[in-house]
């Protein structure tokens, strides 16, 4: 009972938390019972293939869509019924933002800034200058990368406690991407901003994320610290004659043409690999984050 109570309180205190989220589009399941909670001050990288459900999960987490089942909370409030106070503490940048195309970059920032109590107009102005974006150009006439950067300025200038970015680097060039990641790391490190960002660029995760969550076909397959992944997950290769002894629990399983088997396995509570790893001919390969991602996603 106490454990349940503690879990509920923990979820309520988290800047962002979801329980049992289920959603589908036109009959196909996009989210199949996702549970996720962010620790205050953490930087969580949500990774997954295209169509894995990352954007849908983020939108459901922020109350931008009504899921078929499950619940989402932002600062302990139901995401679909957020108060003005909770909204003032969070900022969200969608994938390929297209809002207010009829305003200039300066007008958009000026407009949005009037609603946020901690709006940093100086930051907005200086970052526009630093990122070489013409303030008097209509947003519709900016390139996708420029538009994404204006929206990032909009999000950062509100000085949020929770920053949610959906594929923030997708349209950015390498220089802009690095600047963005630096800014995100700075916010998390200095101001304690909690950050959730989705991506399929693994190097971005390694650069700023403290944790990763892997979403695959609407399910959260793994969640751990970025530094832990090499220690905690590995590829177990079993020759054909040993494949019958493969562990039942594996993140992914692939049989090769010669009958041998590759499995993504996780250390158990005692820090041990599955028993099959000790079989003669079996091999355990440590994987980098990108290989881990590819192995699971394939």
């Amino acid at each position, binding site marked *: 009972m106490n454990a349940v109570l503690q879990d509920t309180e923990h979820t309520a205190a988290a800047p962002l938390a979801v329980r049992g989220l289920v959603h589908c589009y036109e009959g196909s399941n996009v989210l199949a019972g996702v549970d996720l909670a962010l620790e205050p001050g953490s930087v969580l990288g949500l990774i997954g293939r295209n169509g894995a459900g990352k954007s849908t999960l983020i*939108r459901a987490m*922020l*109350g*931008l*869509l*009504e899921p078929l089942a499950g619940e989402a909370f932002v600062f302990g409030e139901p995401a*679909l*019924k*957020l*108060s*003005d*106070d909770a*909204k*003032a503490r*969070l*900022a*969200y940048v*969608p*994938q*390929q*933002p*297209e*809002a*207010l*195309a*009829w*305003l200039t970059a300066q*007008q958009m920032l*000026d*407009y*949005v800034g*009037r*609603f*946020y*109590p901690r709006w940093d107009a100086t930051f907005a102005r200086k970052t526009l200058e630093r990122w070489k974006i013409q303030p008097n150009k*209509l*947003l*519709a*006439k900016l390139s996708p990368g420029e538009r994404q950067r204006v929206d990032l300025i909009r999000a950062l200038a509100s000085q949020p406690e929770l920053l949610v970015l959906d594929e923030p680097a997708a349209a950015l060039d390498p220089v802009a991407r690095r600047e963005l990641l630096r800014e995100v790391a700075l916010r998390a490190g200095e101001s304690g901003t909690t950050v959730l960002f989705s991506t399929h660029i693994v190097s971005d995760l390694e650069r700023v994320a403290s944790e990763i969550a892997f979403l695959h076909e609407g399910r959260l397959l793994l969640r751990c610290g970025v530094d832990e992944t090499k220690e905690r997950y590995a590829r177990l290769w079993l020759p054909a004659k040993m494949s019958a002894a493969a562990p039942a629990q594996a993140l992914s399983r692939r049989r090769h043409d010669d009958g041998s088997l590759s499995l993504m396995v996780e250390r158990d509570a005692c820090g041990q690999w599955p028993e099959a790893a000790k079989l003669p001919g079996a091999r355990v390969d440590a994987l980098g984050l990108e290989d881990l991602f590819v192995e699971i996603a394939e």
Partner: protein
Amino acid sequence: MDMNASTKVRIPLAGVLLAPWHSSRRSLRWLTLVITLLCGLGAIAFGVFSQKAHWWVGSTVIYAFGIGYLWAFWMPTLLLLAIDARRLRLPGMQRAAAYSLWLHAAPSLLVPVLALGACGADMRYVAELVALAMAGGAAVVLLPRWCAMVIGFTPALSIGLRHLAQLPPWSDPRWLAWGGLALFALLAVDAWRWRQLLHSDSDNELGFGSAMLMQLRRQSTLGHWNGLQQLDGGQMIRQRPEWMQPRADLRRIGLQSPVRALRVALGGWYMPKTLSGHLRAAAPALLPILLYIPAMAIMHAGESRSRAAQSILLSTGIGVVGGLGVFGGLMLAAMAMLVVHQRWKRTNAELPLLALLPGLGDARARRHVLLRAAFGTPVKVQLLLLACVLAAALVMHLSGLAVLLVALAQLAAVGAMAAQVLCTLGGYKPHVGVLASIYVVLAVLFCLSTFVPLLSADEHPWSGLALLEPALLASWIVLAAVLLWLGRRGWRGLLARPHPFLAN
């Protein structure tokens, strides 16, 4: 390097023949086929039943209308195919489009010429008229859109210029020479524009300088009844010239005036604008009106000065009041529906911004503010237009019932807008067949209610009015009930939503 020239791709005859079929949308194909077929049958019927000596002139004109439509809206879609083939470097397809054009041009021209010629028609006249219709139809869609606007005024210009120069009548032998010259000019224009559009890498599809054909690429009103819904606001802004870009007026916007703030977020004609912004936004509508006035002046140029001035004022006055009041109201209603529909369709634009914008209050307060923003300005403008229309109706001494019908047309436009906007905000999606039926009935009733009362203003009113006007009134009552039902479904959907900024 031309890929097509360097590769020897064999083009099957069936592919060439069916190229127009594959290069156009289904709805466009069927609409064009039906119109062409009806015109063909009409031409035959006219030929069979006409007692006149020159019966074939009527048959040719009817057929020319149908074939002109086909060569305006269907055959030029081959150019879209050729453009795509060129850009994607698809071998052979560009040539197939060109062959297909010639292959379809031959029977379009030869069949009526031979058929009518066999029945005793003058084949030279038939050939020239049909060829003119085909080349002219293609020119309308290939030339920039502003040319089509000017072409619309040619009847007025030809009437106005009749005192200075007159085209030879049909029976005049010089007509063949004049027609031949016009045909040569049109063919030259068609060939030039075909080549220019084919080799252009510009994506400008919506500007005044773009060809009407380029708009057939998206689901235009010709190809799909709800084609305008496909237009993206950002794309429209990108393709508008700088001097026509409406600028937002951000004064008095913020927490103290959330309704005004929401109007900025809704954009389009909802957006509060500066004075110059209003003028820039209205430019596409103002330009034709500004053209209309000199056109009317030219039309009446031959009349005595005092009479000309009087009739110009009268025609312009009625035209402006009628155009702006009645059809302007309908357009505004359609634009409001369209803007809201577009905003509630996109998940990565204004909706997430508004849903997470602090200061708009709880769900109830946000709903209230949104409804005021969505309905406030359109309803005020519609009422103003209604007042103008009623004033014009009173000046024309229309009967009480006729005035009521005109007012009902305007109010129905507001009602349809309200119902549709509520459905969009509430996430209620009526069946497309239901919506199409409602809007067809609305359009028919709107036109009847607008034009039928004008008949009562005549010195000798049409006798059927006594029956038609009460029937119209009854139809409006039925339509109002349907719109109320639709609006109620939308309203209930809106109430059921946790907040109104959820995308559809």
